[in-house]
């Protein structure tokens, strides 16, 4: 029982980069844009954040830099796919490959740099609640920020007019255009938001969770975030749940060692990736669920007249 609390708390911390990246991609996909470049955007966000924090000494400036870098990467993608009508799948892959290369290149000088750890914050009163307190309310500030983002995304998508418009564009850009909505502009904004969130997730990883920079340190979380959006059938609450579940799977290796369970290290490391496959299979089996919940125009190029 004693072990449960640190495990749950660690799962939430580990899942936070996924929360940011997946919520961002969810908004992007709701507008009908499939951005496969999440891994690349997270990596660039991670190094931008780390480098900024290392050179300025300010962790929060780093977080902002991460968001800006992610959005900048997303803007390349948006330019290619929304204005130049390039294929979304290929462009997203290109973004990832570019992000991998760019982050490795920029990050070389920062490989052995260490940062001062900081930013955890115990919320007074709430953190005293038995069980829930230590799990939920003794976390890093960015964890709380991620909850605010979750709330904001829910409100935006389902209670605001702008969110209704965004969903209609994802459903049928031609109809939305016929009514007079600026499809391209709204998709740009949704894509930039997705990039900023991915960048923030990456920055959280390198600046606060690790904290260090290693080439390729995002280690596929960007792809897992994409799978999460599908697994959650494009609903924000399910994204959160999935992200924390995966956070739990990611840290399983440490707790297995601690508990004395003897499993091969590599198998435990492979667990999150295998789990992603299983989860995808389960959710994709029901074609109708996907059909009813996925934005109809997802991934298709939109050509204004």
């Amino acid at each position, binding site marked *: 029982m004693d072990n449960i609390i640190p495990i749950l708390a660690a799962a939430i911390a580990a899942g936070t980069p996924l929360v940011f990246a997946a919520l961002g991609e969810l908004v992007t996909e709701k507008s009908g844009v499939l951005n496969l470049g999440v891994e690349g955007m997270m990596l660039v966000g991670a190094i931008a954040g780390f480098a900024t924090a290392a050179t300025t000494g300010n962790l929060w400036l780093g977080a902002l830099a991460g968001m800006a870098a992610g959005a900048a990467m997303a803007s390349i993608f948006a330019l290619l796919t929304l204005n130049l009508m390039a294929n979304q799948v290929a462009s997203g892959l*290109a973004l990832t490959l570019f992000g991998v290369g760019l982050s490795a*290149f920029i990050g070389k000088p920062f490989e052995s740099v260490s940062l001062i750890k900081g930013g955890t914050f115990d919320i007074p009163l709430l953190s005293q609640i038995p069980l829930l307190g230590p799990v939920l309310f003794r976390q890093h500030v960015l964890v709380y920020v991620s909850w605010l983002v979750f709330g904001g995304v829910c409100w935006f998508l389902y209670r605001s007019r702008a969110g209704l418009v965004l969903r209609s564009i994802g459903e049928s850009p031609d109809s939305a255009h016929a009514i007079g909505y600026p499809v391209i502009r709204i998709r740009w904004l949704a894509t930039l938001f997705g990039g900023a969130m991915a960048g923030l997730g990456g920055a959280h990883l390198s600046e606060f969770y690790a904290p260090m920079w290693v080439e390729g340190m995002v280690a596929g979380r960007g792809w897992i975030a994409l799978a999460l959006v599908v697994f959650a059938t494009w609903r924000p609450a399910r994204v959160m749940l999935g992200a924390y579940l995966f956070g739990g799977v990611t840290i399983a290796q440490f707790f297995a060692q601690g508990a004395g369970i003897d499993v091969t290290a590599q198998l435990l490391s492979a667990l999150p990736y295998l789990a992603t496959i299983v989860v995808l299979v389960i959710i994709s089996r029901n074609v109708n669920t996907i059909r009813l919940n996925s934005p109809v125009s997802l991934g298709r190029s939109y050509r204004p007249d």
Partner: protein
Amino acid sequence: MRLRLEARPEPSRLMGILSPLLAAALTIVAGFVLFSALGKNPLQAFYTFFIYPIRDINGLTEMLLKASPLMLIGIGLACGYRANVWNIGAEGQLILGAIFASGVALAYHGSESRLVLPAMFVAGAVGGMLWAAIPAFLRVRFNTNEILVSLMLVYVASFLLSWLVHEPWRDPEGFNFPQSKQFTDSALYPILIEGTRLNVGFLIALVAVALGYVFLNRSFLGFQLQVAGLAGAAAKYAGFRASRMVWLGMLVGGACAGIAGMGEVAGPIGQLLPSVSPGYGFAAIIVAFVGRLHPIGIMLASLLMSLLYLGGEAAQMGLNLPSAITGLFQGMLLFFLLGSDVFINYRIKSARAVPVPAPKMAAT
């Protein structure tokens, strides 16, 4: 004067050929800018990066050596991409091919038999196909997205490889380094040119490209793949089974990647190591795109990508830049290609308002 994109009445053949060249040129220009920004003399950097690595026979053979797996995997992936089957996990399939081939090599370690190499070849292909069969099966049976599955399997494959060289297959006389025993001669590709590392794998890659050309452009199966990729509803209408296209697309890519993996351990590496590829599986994706899914284009694109690899290594030694610059260039190349491709179907027009003519009453 505002610019806008206007659809062409039919796609420009000329741009179809020019756009990869345009992309390559833009990448070089970007390289110039990058080198200058990093404080290096651009012309000298250009020489170091692009010319110096291939200045002698040794350099040329190194370029061909690196181009072989790129070509091979590229043509394999092209078959799948033609059919909209997105195999992104070629790197993982390469690793499995290397593992299977190594298994055979280690099982027959010390044997002088002529059959070891062919057996490794088959094993490599099988390994790659097996790994590719997983996303194929999951897509056909459960409608699961093959991009994500094949990609996840890359990570799983590298963990599998890590475990193998750390534990069961670790060379007992290897000073505790994670590596397998070094392969004996019967398990290594014969060298083509004395004094270089260029081996038979290069010829195999060329043959694969030639076969790929015939298959994609002249066979009925190749036609079916193309229809499946261009218009899924039309493929269904014609009676081309979608599941067959998925299996074909994935398995061909997997086999090619597996053979390429075998080529690495039977070639320049000569044993099984924790890393058997500097990202060939991913670079081959770029090769397939830049090469326009066409065999000749793939050959040329793989030479270019191979040069970028060599350039990165040279830059590390000669320019004091991290070798990761290779990945940066490769990514830029793909971006520029996707951007240039726009001009195949669109052209730039200025959005000037057409002057209003004097109103005319219509005749009856």
